[in-house]
């Protein structure tokens, strides 16, 4: 299947004087895993916000499955199946972890997809949490979100997205703030989702992991797209090395 699921055309966004995104265009094929990388402040989060309606573009269009979604409200876009995680986690801190998922499970989209009798929302929530590595028989899923370690909150974000049964998943630096072992256990989940046909856009700073699973990688620098291609091509691209990898290598070593 080579159908395009999402296309961005010529997106531009300025914040006051700061240019966050300049003329970015790209396409995502159904079932593809697109990695997005770039130095800090290069506009990755802004791109995610533009795609999911949290920020309106100054110029340009976003097209999802043939119809334009530019400027639609975030909840409408989520309802169409484009679901994102937040780089800064946004759980409901006062609620137990599993109750966090009850809120998206309450949405019309879930009602439609799962039909009427999908059982108790709490049970579904616990199942979802198990999928992202919350130990089912421990107290962890029942703990108040504010008492969970950051790595768990990141995976809670992922579970919150999965609750909606997304068609396109956008992960904004999911791995930042996770421990090595957490990354190692979360990576297979993403690979599995992708192999089941879910299209994924993955903004990431952990290049090693990303390059292993991504079909294609796009590089942003100062808001502009400077490279787009297979992980191997991107790694060898000179502009990318100059802008990004050059400074990053020391950190990774």
């Amino acid at each position, binding site marked *: 299947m080579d159908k395009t699921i999402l296309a961005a055309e010529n997106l531009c966004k300025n*914040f006051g004087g700061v240019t966050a995104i300049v003329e970015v265009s790209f396409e995502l094929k159904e079932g593809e895993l697109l990695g997005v990388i770039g130095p800090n402040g290069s506009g990755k989060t802004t791109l995610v916000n533009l795609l999911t309606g*949290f*920020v309106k573009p100054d110029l340009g269009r976003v097209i999802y499955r043939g119809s334009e979604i530019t400027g639609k409200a975030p909840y409408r876009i989520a309802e169409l199946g484009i679901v994102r995680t*937040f780089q*800064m986690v946004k759980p409901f801190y006062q609620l137990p972890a599993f109750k966090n998922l009850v809120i998206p499970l309450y949405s019309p989209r879930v009602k439609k997809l799962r039909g009427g009798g999908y059982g108790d929302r709490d049970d579904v929530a616990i199942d979802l949490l198990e999928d992202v590595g919350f130990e089912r028989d421990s107290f962890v899923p029942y703990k108040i979100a504010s008492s969970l370690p950051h790595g768990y909150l990141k995976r809670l974000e992922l579970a919150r997205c999965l609750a909606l049964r997304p068609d396109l998943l956008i992960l904004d630096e999911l791995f930042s703030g996770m421990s090595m072992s957490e990354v190692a256990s979360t990576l297979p989940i993403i690979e599995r989702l992708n192999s089941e046909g879910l299209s994924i856009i993955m903004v990431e700073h952990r290049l090693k992991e990303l390059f292993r699973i991504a079909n294609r990688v796009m590089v942003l620098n100062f808001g502009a797209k400077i490279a787009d291609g297979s992980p191997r091509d991107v790694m060898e691209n000179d502009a990318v090395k100059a802008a990004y990898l050059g400074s990053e290598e020391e950190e990774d070593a």
Partner: protein
Amino acid sequence: MDCRKIMLPSIIIYGLINSVILALIAMGFSLTFGISGVANFAYGGFYLFSGFLVWMLLNYLKFPLILAIMVTIGVTGLLGFVTYWVILLRVRGIALSEVIATFALGVGILELFRWMGFVTYEFTLPYLKKGMILIAGVPVDYQRLFIIGIGLGLVLFLYFFTHYTRIGLSFRGIAQNERTAISLGIKSDRTAALSLAFGSAMAAVAAIVILPLGIISINTGYEVLLIAVAVGIVGGLESVPGILVASLILGYAQVITGTYFKPEWMMVVYLAAIVLVLGIRPSGLFGKFKELEERV
């Protein structure tokens, strides 16, 4: 035909005066809100407080007018400052509590005056200078000219103050980005307290020049808050150009309705303007409030 001829200049002049009055009233509220994000619902209370304070200084202590005015501006400013340190500092960041605390303070002040018997017709402030002149055939008294002068002066003062003085610059810093400003060594609490003091002092200035036009009555206090808020809603709460434009629009709209319909309809202009603006642009004509565009 003849009648029209006098009406037009009169509308232009009195519309301007009315607009300046609205702007004077709204400015203090919006200044405080723009800088510290505190909506000072005690604004009407402070406004009336300064009116009565001048009156008391003049009539009980026999102060000369200028001294009474100076003292009142100072005291009202201090009142704002103290309000911040005593009440608002403890509930900072909790919108619910901030709103309730200032609202209660304002209502408390107003109703206290009502209870103390400040409700008769004897409470008027003197004109700064009596007499009137004719402008384009329209009689205008000096007090109203003062209002225009002070309104313009205040806008200019604010501009220079926020662009060229240290405190003013720190005001702008906090207004634009509190965290960055703090990291540059601007004290956020002191700035917020000062912003409240300035806002309150501006309420006092407004009261001193506007109140002589009528009697001081308790309901003016509520009305002033209403005006400040209405102008803010229409223009955009934290935007100074917004306040000015909204004052002009509302000011002229009122005078025009007042001339061609009945004076009572002037108040309805607010409702119509608010409903209209809220329907089209809930953040006001010049408002920067954007619901979603904060950092994610």
